[in-house]
């Protein structure tokens, strides 16, 4: 079942078939990206604005590459939080850019719910590129795509998500989607970084790094947001790395052919040691980045088809 909505706000709203349809489409775009002429005309004549209210390198470039490979005019707009504090509201800014006949906005914003809010107040399509702690749906999709490529199927799969789950939009998108696909998900992190009422996720919560890694097919390490720590969630980087970091020794507990994912950017020596990051046997971090472009092409393409069908 192809996804038929104006916006992509979060994977919590999607059913299994819709998730799989994005991945199927991404496979085709990945093949295109590996061909001689990395170009498809499906968004020719369309305007995509990357509206980033938070810093980003990977995600913004990935969306820009995706839009351009589909033939769209891709424009980057970044507003530091201070510039939005100059007075203009988020919706006013979006309406102004909409007046320039923008078809799709890719929005990254520090506030949870911001993508939902803009989508409700804009005729353009909104792709959520991360809103606060809520969701980062294209990251979730590219994680699933990468897992599928390496594991062949989502059947009988155990995935561990480790780190600052409470403050991670990647974790939320991953968890919602994986539960819908029937994947067994284990969570681990210091209790200060686990959200309250975790039962809503219906996941097993581990009590040690060893338990979290043992028997897992996929390990997703989350980034510790060093720049956002107010110093009360964990006592020191040294201690974090000791009890919550992924090492090659701990990796031995994982299932055969287990893979390691990370949404980037990595803090080497904090959540993961370099011998894990750079281990070609299980680190698929750069595959994730490659697949991210294909997933974002699939998302932009799908939303554009919906717009065409509705004469938007």
């Amino acid at each position: 079942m192809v996804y038929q909505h104006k916006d992509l706000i979060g994977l919590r709203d999607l059913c299994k078939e819709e998730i799989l349809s994005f991945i199927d489409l991404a496979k085709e775009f990945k093949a295109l990206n590996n061909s001689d002429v990395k170009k498809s005309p499906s968004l020719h004549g369309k305007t995509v604005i990357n509206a980033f209210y938070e810093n980003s390198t990977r995600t913004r470039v990935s969306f820009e590459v995706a839009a351009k490979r589909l033939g769209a005019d891709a424009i980057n707009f970044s507003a530091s939080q201070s510039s939005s504090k100059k007075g203009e509201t988020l919706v006013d800014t979006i309406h102004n850019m909409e007046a320039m006949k923008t078809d799709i906005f890719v929005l990254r914003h520090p506030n949870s719910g911001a993508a939902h809010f803009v989508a409700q107040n804009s005729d353009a399509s909104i792709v959520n590129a991360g809103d606060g702690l809520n969701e980062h749906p294209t990251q979730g999709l590219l994680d699933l795509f990468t897992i599928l490529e390496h594991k062949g199927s989502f059947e009988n799969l155990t995935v561990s998500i480790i780190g600052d789950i409470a403050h991670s939009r990647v974790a939320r998108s991953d968890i919602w989607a994986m539960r819908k696909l029937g994947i067994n998900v284990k969570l681990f992190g210091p209790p200060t970084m686990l959200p309250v009422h975790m039962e809503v996720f219906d996941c097993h919560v581990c009590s040690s790094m060893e338990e979290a890694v043992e028997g897992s097919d996929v390990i997703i390490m989350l980034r510790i947001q060093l720049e956002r720590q107010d110093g009360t969630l964990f006592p020191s980087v040294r201690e974090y790395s000791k009890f919550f970091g992924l090492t090659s020794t701990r990796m031995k507990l994982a299932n055969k052919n287990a893979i390691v994912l990370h949404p980037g950017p990595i803090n080497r020596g904090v959540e993961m040691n370099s011998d894990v990051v750079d281990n070609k046997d299980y680190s698929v971090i750069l595959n994730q980045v490659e697949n991210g472009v294909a997933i974002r092409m699939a998302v932009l393409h799908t939303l554009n088809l919906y717009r065409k069908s509705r004469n938007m």
Partner: protein
Amino acid sequence: MKTLIKNGIIVNSDGQIKANVLIEDEMIVDIIEHEVQADTVIDACGNYIMPGLIDMHVHFRDPGQEYKDDVISGSETAVASGVTTCLPMANTFPINDNSSITRAMIQKAKQRGLIDLLPIGAISQGLHGDRIVEMGDMIEAGAVAFSDDGLPVSDSSVMRDALEYSRGFNSFVISHSEDCSLCRKGVMHEGEISTILGLKGMASEKEEIMISRDMLLAKLTKGHIHIAHVSSAWSLKLIELAKQEGINITCEVTPHHFSFSDKNLLSYNTHFKMSPPLRSENDINAIREALKSGLVDVIATDHAPHHNDDKFVEFDNAPFGILGLQTLVPLTLKLVNEGIISLERMVELTSANPAKILNLKTKGKIAKGMLADIAIIDPNKEYIYDESINKSKSKNSPLFGEKLTGAAVMTLKNGRVVYDFPHCL
């Protein structure tokens, strides 16, 4: 001048009676079964005649933020809600921390002449939480209680001083109970829904810790502490304990806290954003139980107007607060319809108990010798809560545009008709 209200059912906190109310000038002079001659006869059409409601917690944003509401629009909103006495909080600009602001607020309300405005002064000068205000001087000017409301006093010594000092003037302190050092920047109740939405939570312990402190300070000082807008089950447990121990403590709940839960936030609707936040079903049930049992003393609205410009933003950036006055009667009547409280208890919570707490001897009852502050309530009135009904300058209610049942169809203040649905007079 004599006014007769006939064909109504008089509801007081201690019972109801089918009788007529005879008013002379501003006082109720008799409750009679027969009809007598009067200059004006009001037909209550079988509706309830209740003592004018007393709202112990409103924000009229005046002075300073008159684009949200002011004392005039606030007064009009009040009488359109059956409310004849309002206690506005001190977080105005400038702050109501001195007698001249208090006097100016009262004066403005008197000019419009719809309600009695009984200002709540700040506890601390400038709401800074360090030095207490000139309480005696402000009481002389008309202030009736003291609260730093949304910026709770974190220094326990200052709170102690406020409780002790206000006691000397037979006044009291209202606590917006919040330990602000616990979960900073929270925007909603910390629970399953905040986990789902990725919004930063405000644990109910944030409130409960402060109630614990303040009730213990009331025990120490023998001062009177009134806990504003109680939102959690554990808060009620603590208040129950304090009452059992004879501590001088009273409390209020708001209609939104007994009507809505955090589940309403699933669409990130900023009209459901307030502090304290909407909590879990379990908390709502505890509040309803406490309304029934008598543990809760007062229903107050925490009427908090905010302009659409302020609310039409990202959820994190929207201010806390919801309009409360014009939904007070319909939401409270819903409790009556659901069998949670009786009509008499409704009067106790919205008028009799506030009058008792505020020592207003001529208010809170329909009886001979009382002030003719009267709300005629039609429990079956159906209407859309829209522009034509709304008297506030703001519209930040999730019920705006919805069908409501039950309303004040006429309000009298000092014997004069000040509201005749849907018009203020």
